């Protein structure tokens, strides 16, 4: 009897397998290297921590704010710890939002208490990204915690720079960014809780 090697091996591997889904081949993964050093200019290296962002993280966001992360955002993600020698300076975490012409990938920088330090666009096809990046918009978010950002959005207690206030696309993107900052901080807090605690303790010593 002629042995059908290919289907046999396929069936054996399938029966033993148990893992999570990833639609993109891993050779396509790129660390946001340039943005890590732009957002933390004093960093000399970074440390990756890969964790699962799962339904529990999604629920955590849902419980905190009236919006949440999409199911396509579940799966393994990397939190980058910006390092200066052996000292942790803060976190870098990139998340995607659906924009007018495609996904907008935003690279967020947080301090060790998850207050916003800065952000940059890794991918963006909209002219309003340039407008936002060149404006003082980031000053609205700098140093803000999740609760402060939530309050800002709920009470509409913020004033956009004129060049953004007069542009509808820029206003929409500004709101998207504020929501993204909140979601990213909440997901980071929930999925990387142990590592954050450990880094805080190490930095206090």
């Amino acid at each position, binding site marked *: 009897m002629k042995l059908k090697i*290919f289907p046999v091996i396929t069936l054996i591997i399938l029966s033993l397998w148990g893992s999570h889904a990833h639609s993109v081949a891993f*050779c396509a993964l790129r660390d946001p290297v340039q943005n890590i050093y732009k957002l933390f200019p004093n960093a000399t290296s970074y440390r990756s*921590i890969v964790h699962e962002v799962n339904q529990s993280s999604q629920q955590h966001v849902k419980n905190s704010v009236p919006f949440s992360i999409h199911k*396509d955002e579940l799966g393994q993600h990397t939190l980058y710890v910006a390092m200066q020698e052996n000292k942790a300076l803060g976190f870098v975490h990139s998340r995607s939002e659906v924009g007018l012409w495609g996904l907008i990938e935003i690279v967020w920088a947080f301090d060790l208490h998850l207050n916003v330090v800065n952000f940059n666009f890794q991918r963006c096809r909209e002219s309003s990204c340039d407008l936002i990046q060149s404006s003082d918009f980031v000053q609205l978010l700098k140093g803000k915690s999740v609760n402060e950002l939530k309050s800002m959005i709920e009470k509409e207690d913020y004033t956009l720079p004129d060049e953004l206030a007069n542009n509808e696309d820029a206003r929409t993107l500004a709101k998207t960014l504020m929501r993204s900052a909140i979601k990213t901080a909440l997901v980071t807090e929930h999925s990387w809780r142990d590592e954050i605690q450990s880094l805080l303790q190490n930095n206090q010593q």
Partner: protein
Amino acid sequence: MINKLLCSLVFVLLSFQAFAFDSVSWQKLNENLRLSLDLSVRGQYHFRTNQLSNINTIGIDMHKVFSGENGDIGTLIFQGYLTKLVNVKPFPAIYNRKDDLKFVCRICNFNLNILDKNLLNVRIGHYELPFGLEYNIDTNGTFRQFSNGRTLGGKLDWGVTANGKTTWGGYEISLSRGSGVDWTDNYSTYIVSGRVERSLSYDSFIGLSFYQGHLRAAKSDGYFDRTRIGLDASTPLGPFTFLTEFSVGKDDGKEIISALFEIDVHNPNEKLLAYFQLATLSHHLDHQDWDSMIQSFLGLKFTPDNHWTISAQWRQDLDVFDNSQRGSVMEAQLRYRF
């Protein structure tokens, strides 16, 4: 000579790794590990010959970041795929027959961080040669391909590279064996290649590549020298992306010019991608006219979720080399990762 140099480099790198790893706390093996099983079924129909064929693959895709207290040490990528051809005529050069079964290590390398701020890393293993658009866009196991297969004869090789990123862009310089997909016992070949990239904005870049190789001829026991210089670029406009690459060079005395232009478009959540490519390859020997081939590719890719990818492509020869016949191929593929 080149291979002795490669072996020495491997030894030095392994010694360095042993030294570096000694000073960090080892993590559990599954930390920072991504692992996926990748299955695909591809069907092809050749209109001229009325021939049906298919290619089935099952593979393991692994990505592991090794980290220490002071930062990441390096990244290991292993993509091992078992590939089964069924009635594939003509079959790609890496296979032995139309119904071959073969294990292929697509990308299997370790990239070791050497200098702060990722200014210098050293990659060792099996990797995509740093040349052209291929460098930035993953095309392994997909219909969408760029020029490297056509103009360089392949896109993978075993060797060592120096690579890095800066605020203005990045670079990768490679010294490889010239053996392609397989690790052969022929130590007479080599390839030196490299690419420098300038990032222009969030989604735009321009790249300059070079390639110098001493390679074994496909259909004889002889050897030949291959040189190329290439320029590539990508820029978006709304939902469209324009990509192009152009290279000139020689295969011994034969002059070669290659060009590719792509326009693609996707929907806002990027689950649906459509692309159109025009690719040309021209060559000429002294005292002979230029001879050219032109191909067009029209493709669709749909990624409904994190598991499935459904894609299709129509490849049409618009012009072919002398003594060749025009072909037209319709292809479809179902891919599942979990």
